[in-house]
Each structure stands twice: as structure tokens, then as C-alpha cells.
């Protein structure tokens, strides 16, 4: 243990000064979930397969919504998508002050929403 202590004194700190310095994510890590809404056909397979039921798809109103605070980042939707338009970034979603969902509409710009209670 003495050798360990000396080595720790001489080498740098073992922790990073987060959030000033952020570790880049690993290439295959499952970070934030995103959808290339231009290619999405709103088939709804991702919403059916999701274990935590965090995706809502509406063909009538042409939108795809995810609740990133209920998502468990398992990647099942990404594998199930027939168009391959869902993907995980390598970086994780940033912390936020309020929980909000991400709504991607095919005809409008993306916006943050209040997460609907009836899931």
C-alpha cells in the first residue's frame, strides 16, 4: 500500500474536473437517442418494442416523441427500426433542470415537450 500511496502522490489526479473537462464518449456506447426524422416512416415498431414504453408515435399528427428521462438506453428500438433511422450518439444526454420530452415533427422544427402522464 505504501508503494500505491507514493505512486498516487507523484502521478496526476485520478479524477477529471468535470464539467470543465468532459471525457469523450466511447464509439459504441449508447448515449443520447436520436431519430433522423426525414427518413422515419412513423411505423411505430419502436414504440411497440420499447421495454420502458418511452416512445410515442402519432401518424395522424406526424410526430415521433421520446422521453429521454425514462429511456433506459437499451438499444432495442435502434435494432428494430426497419428504416435504420434511429441512432445512439456516443455522448450521453446532458443533465437538465426539468424533465422534458423530445418531440420531432415531420413538418416543423424539433421542440421540447412536457412528458405526457398516461404511459
Amino acid at each position, binding site marked *: *500500500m505504501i*508503494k*500505491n*500511496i507514493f505512486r498516487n502522490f507523484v502521478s496526476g489526479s*485520478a479524477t477529471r474536473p468535470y464539467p470543465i473537462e468532459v471525457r469523450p464518449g*466511447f*464509439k*459504441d*456506447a*449508447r448515449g443520447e437517442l436520436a431519430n433522423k426524422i426525414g427518413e422515419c416512416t412513423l411505423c411505430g415498431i419502436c414504440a411497440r*418494442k*420499447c*421495454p*420502458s414504453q418511452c416512445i410515442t408515435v402519432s401518424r395522424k399528427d406526424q410526430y415521433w416523441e421520446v422521453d429521454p428521462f425514462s429511456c*433506459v*438506453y*437499451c*438499444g*432495442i428500438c435502434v*435494432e428494430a427500426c426497419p428504416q435504420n433511422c434511429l441512432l*445512439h450518439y456516443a455522448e450521453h444526454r446532458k443533465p437538465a433542470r426539468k424533465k422534458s420530452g423530445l418531440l420531432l415533427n415531420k413538418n416543423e422544427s424539433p421542440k421540447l415537450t412536457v412528458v405526457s402522464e398516461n404511459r
Partner: protein
Amino acid sequence: MSKTIVPFGPQHPVLPEPIHLSLTVEDEIVKEAVPAFGYVHRGLEKLAEKRDFHQMIQVVERVCGICSMIHAMCYCQGLETLMNVDVPRRGQFLRVIWSELHRIHSHLLWLGLYADAFGFESVFMQFWKIRERIMDINEATAGNRVIVSVNQVGGVRRDLSPSKCEWILAELAHVEQEMKDLESTMLNNYTVKKRTVGKGVLTQEAAYELGAAGPTLRASGIAQDMRQLAYEAFDELDFAPVVETGGDAYARGVVRFRETFQSIDLVRQAIARMPQGDTFVKVKGKPEGEVVQRVEQPRGECLYYIKANKTKFLDRLRIRTPTFANIPPLAAMLPGMELADVPVLILSIDPCISCTER
């Protein structure tokens, strides 16, 4: 010589898990211990009626955060037996690699908490620093740090490229060297021995009869490990259970320390012998019948009973986790010990209350 009843837990600075013990003490010697839990019951077995059997993999992984991949592996093995699916050989080797990595990081976590229980906070930090390497391996290969969703019915969802395998071997060499540096601190130290040798002795007959599981059983001299059942790729790997005969808290520490080295060796063997091929097979249809499946988790023997009736929801999913089996031995080993030994003894069985209560 009056008796006092000391309520220990569920919130306590030295207790890592929300278990409650009513200790009847007489002058600092514990006379009787009655366990009680129920603080983190989530009813996950009942959720099998609301989520279909593919989505249940994600639910079952969350029974315990530390042995999560092994829970999912046992569940998938049970369903594969029911649906007559053979996992390809490469998929079996990959499952062995990830489950042994889970065992390494679970034992490192435990060693840190154990050192913290008798006040060695620096050693606690050192062990968790070593553990960060395994967490990075998890994130880079399987996708997430703690709850790696890498199992599916029929195989695994990710593959390991040769460059990743080499990187894993390099990291494990660092882990092994760093653990050897800390070996004399944990196993040959005068203070550690004074606090753990001779405490909480479970004789061989008592451990067998009370149904102890895992290192608690193997530290009392019984060589029983579910990996001897040769599931997955364990039939091709050289493996023998790690056994000690002391039966006290020190012997359990030695068993887990040596099991970490054994797991590093198993990962090396698995990477060397892994064949090329597919990692999964496509599975269609619904399961029917009932099956009992057992695996060896870091904490002991875990039993899954699955009953299915050809619909997409399972009829009954019953999980018997190792800490559930280790609580009666805990209640039997506490009488006669001093009050200050209680946290060390609770930690020596490696409690995981989220597993126990599901």
C-alpha cells in the same frame, strides 16, 4: 445485565444496503438478530404479466445492478431451453466473457465496501479506481457501464473485434497487477485479521443445512459452484471452485479475492479459445412449458423458474436470488458476536437487498 433491542438499519452510515436488523444485545454481545426487509420491493415478478417475454429481459436485468448481465443470461437460457434454441458457440463464449467481467467488478466493489466497513477509506478508493477500468470495458464493448443490455433470446447483441479483445487483455493485465499490489493490505494486515479472523464462523454442516450460497458456502469448505454445471462455454474452460476452510469472515474475503484472479484467468482463456461464427440465432414463436435454470452469480447460486403458456406474456417468473438464501445464515452467525462486528459480518455475506426483494 439487561437486554436492549438495537434497531440497526435501514439507514446507517456503515450499512450499504437497506436491511433492517433487530439486535437484542446484552452488554455489547448480540444475543439474537431478527432480519426484516421490504424497503425496496418493486414487484418485478408481477411485471411479467404486463411486458412480453422479450421486453422482460430489460426488466430482469434491473433486479440487481451489479450482477445484471447474469440475471439476463439465466432468463435467456431458460427461454432457450423452452423454445429449443441452440446459442452459437461464439455467442456462448461472449456471454462467458461479459459475465466474468461482471464478477470481477462485483468483487472489486465488495472489497472496497469491506475495507470501508472497518474504516480503511483509502483502500476503498483504490479498489474502486481499479474497478473503473472494468466499467470502461463495459461501456466500450457492450454499450453501458452498469446495466449492459447485451443479451437476447438466442445469443448476444454485440460482438468483440480482435482489437477490442487485445485492449481488454491489456486492461486486465493492469487490473491484475494493481490487485496484486493491494493483496498484502487486504489479506496480510494485522488490523484486518484482528477484525475478521474468527468472527461469524459458519461450520461446514451449518452452512450446508442453512442453505448458504456462493462464497459464503465455499468459505466453509464445501466445493460447490454452479459453474460446474458447465452451462454456456464453461465445459471448454479449465475451472475449479475456490474453496477455503476457515468459515469466518476472513475466509470469505480470501475466497472472493482469489475468485477475482480466477475470473481474470477465465476471461483470458475465453478470448483465446473463442471461435469465429455468428453471435446469435433468430428466434420466432412463443415459449411453452416450465423450466428451472441455475447460474452462479457473484453472490452465489441463483435459480429461475419460468412457466410459459404459448402467449407472449409469461405465466409465472420466479427468481430466487443468492442473498435471499444467505440471510438465514446471517441470522444464525450473529449471536455471540460483539455489536461492532455486526457491519463487518453483514458485509461478509455480500448483501444485495435489491436482489432479495426484487
